[in-house]
């Protein structure tokens, strides 16, 4: 058997396999035996007709047809072993020629994608931390206070005032057409509004202040150009409104706030803590933006050669994630598709661009992990495990360990590697001029709790060790890093 390989675009390998005459003859013999076992030939018991009789009875093309699959399967497997090729998807048969010499066939196999990183150490993404000014601090403090507001029904009817909470029937119209389509027979659902100028659309606050219950109102409002709803952005919107209920919002005194927030300190200390939290959030945001920008540049400059099958697989995985979400709510995915009037295949096709982007991110980051030789040690995995388990009480921790076992260690390993990768990206992106934020470590309490069952921990550590040693884990972690990079951190 002679095997020649040729590299094709999209990470495909064309394998031309040439067979000896003897191999083909053996294949034809096997095919004749199979045919004679399958079909009765007059004068012969099943399986007893010799090859020349079968060949004469069914014809050579039929015999070749029967032999082709078998010949291809056997020789393809041999060829893969001989050439040490590991396909990552279904091979596609390109050409077959078994009727005349040379007996050969060509198979296109998707193989591991090739990823060529650019000079990734030269990519820069600045970490620009937004200032936290007094106004932001005041707003955050006011939000804290607002959380503890108490609603009280009015003792005497009065018009709406600033600070009240209203229950309103509200419908928006643009050019006389309702913005949100609804069934005309269905009554409008009441909306709850807090009557404060910076919380409502321009004009709506002025239109509602001073109005009484059950009064039909028509309020005109000009929406800003950057309004998130495209239907109304930059347009004149008229609101048909009717106040159903007015409630007074009673805010606690500022001095009560530390107690209400269960904060052990004075109001000034709470203010300082809030400022620190805001600074931390601003820093996290800035870091996230820098990481995202770095990954975007990295992916744009990296050269990829990926097979379509990987993109299809990624799209399928994404859809399966969605389907499992549906199943969690007790809905069958087929029901959802039927209700939406879509087919699964169409959804898969629509998901492909997103899947390709996700795949590119994963591959580029995986390659970065390899290039930077990032690894996680057992103690790092244990620390990450403790951070995960910290969220649960002792009973749930045990249940988690039993249920998830090794999977938990894998997740912890991924998280640890993800953190390392983020830090490294920030160091590279800022050319060493920025020191990334330290992630909060697991508390002693959680560590002690997770050490409770020594045997369990040992098992997990053993599993974690395996992962730390396996290259494969880096790939998965890169995947997690991609997901994390695409998530916005809460401010």
């Amino acid at each position, binding site marked *: 058997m002679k095997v020649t390989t040729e590299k094709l675009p999209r990470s495909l390998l064309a394998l031309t396999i040439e067979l000896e005459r003897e191999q083909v003859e053996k294949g034809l013999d096997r095919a004749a035996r199979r045919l004679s076992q399958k079909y009765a030939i007059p*004068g*012969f018991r099943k399986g*007893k007709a*010799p090859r*020349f*009789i079968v060949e*004469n009875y069914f014809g050579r093309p039929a015999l070749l047809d029967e032999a082709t699959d078998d010949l291809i399967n056997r020789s393809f497997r041999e060829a893969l072993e001989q050439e040490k090729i590991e396909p990552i998807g279904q091979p596609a048969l390109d050409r077959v020629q078994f009727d005349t010499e040379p007996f050969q066939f060509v198979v296109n196999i998707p193989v591991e994608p090739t990823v060529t990183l650019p000079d990734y150490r030269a990519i820069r993404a600045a970490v620009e931390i937004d200032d936290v000014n007094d106004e932001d601090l005041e707003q955050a403090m006011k939000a804290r206070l607002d959380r503890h507001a108490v609603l009280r029904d009015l003792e005497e009817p009065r018009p709406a005032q600033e600070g009240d909470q209203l229950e309103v029937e509200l419908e928006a119209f643009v050019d006389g057409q309702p913005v949100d389509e609804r069934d005309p027979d269905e009554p409008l659902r009441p909306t709850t509004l807090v009557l404060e100028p910076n919380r409502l659309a321009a004009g709506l606050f002025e239109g509602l202040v001073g109005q009484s219950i059950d009064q039909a109102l028509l309020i005109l409002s000009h929406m800003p150009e950057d309004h998130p709803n495209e239907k109304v952005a930059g347009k004149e919107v008229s609101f048909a409104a009717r106040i159903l209920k007015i409630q007074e919002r009673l805010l606690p005194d500022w001095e009560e706030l530390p107690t209400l927030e269960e904060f052990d300190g004075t109001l000034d200390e709470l203010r300082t803590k809030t400022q620190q939290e805001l600074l931390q959030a601003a820093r996290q945001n800035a870091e996230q933006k820098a990481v995202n920008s770095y990954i975007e540049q990295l992916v744009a400059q990296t050269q990829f050669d990926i097979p379509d099958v990987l993109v299809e697989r990624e799209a399928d995985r994404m859809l399966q994630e969605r389907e499992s979400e549906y199943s969690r709510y007790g809905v069958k995915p087929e029901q959802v598709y039927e209700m939406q009037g879509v087919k699964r295949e169409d959804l898969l096709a629509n998901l492909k661009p997103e899947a390709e982007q996700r795949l590119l991110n994963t591959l580029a980051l995986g390659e970065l992990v390899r290039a930077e030789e990032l690894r996680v040690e057992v103690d790092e995995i244990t620390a990450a495990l403790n951070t995960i388990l910290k969220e649960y009480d002792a009973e749930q921790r045990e249940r988690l360990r039993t249920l998830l076992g090794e999977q938990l260690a894998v997740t912890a390993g991924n998280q640890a590697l993800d953190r390392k990768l983020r830090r490294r990206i920030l160091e590279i992106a800022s050319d060493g001029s920025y020191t990334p934020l330290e992630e909060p470590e697991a508390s002693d309490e959680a560590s002690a709790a997770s050490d409770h069952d020594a045997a369990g921990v040992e098992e997990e550590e053993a599993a974690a060790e395996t992962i730390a040693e396996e290259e494969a884990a880096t790939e998965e972690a890169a995947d997690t890093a991609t997901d994390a990079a695409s998530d916005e951190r809460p401010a």
Partner: protein
Amino acid sequence: MIPHQIIIRPLITEKNTNLMTLNKYCFEVDRNASKSQIKAAIEAIFNVSVAKVHTMNVRGKMKRRGREFGYTADWKKAIVTLAEGSRIDLFEGV
């Protein structure tokens, strides 16, 4: 009789295929043909040399259709043994 009237058809069955390894070939032949006529006809058609010819008359089988019954036709079978080195390439090497 011309050779193709004597030799009606070759008989290809599991048993006869096994006989081919002994250089023996089976044919349905005309019921009135003699061994020498069969030998001459085989030699003429296949261009081989025949060593021996064995013949037998095969009785027709009884066939029944409901209450009616009858017989298929009687026929003659010939087992032709070829001389060493002769071979009939009737099917082989197709």
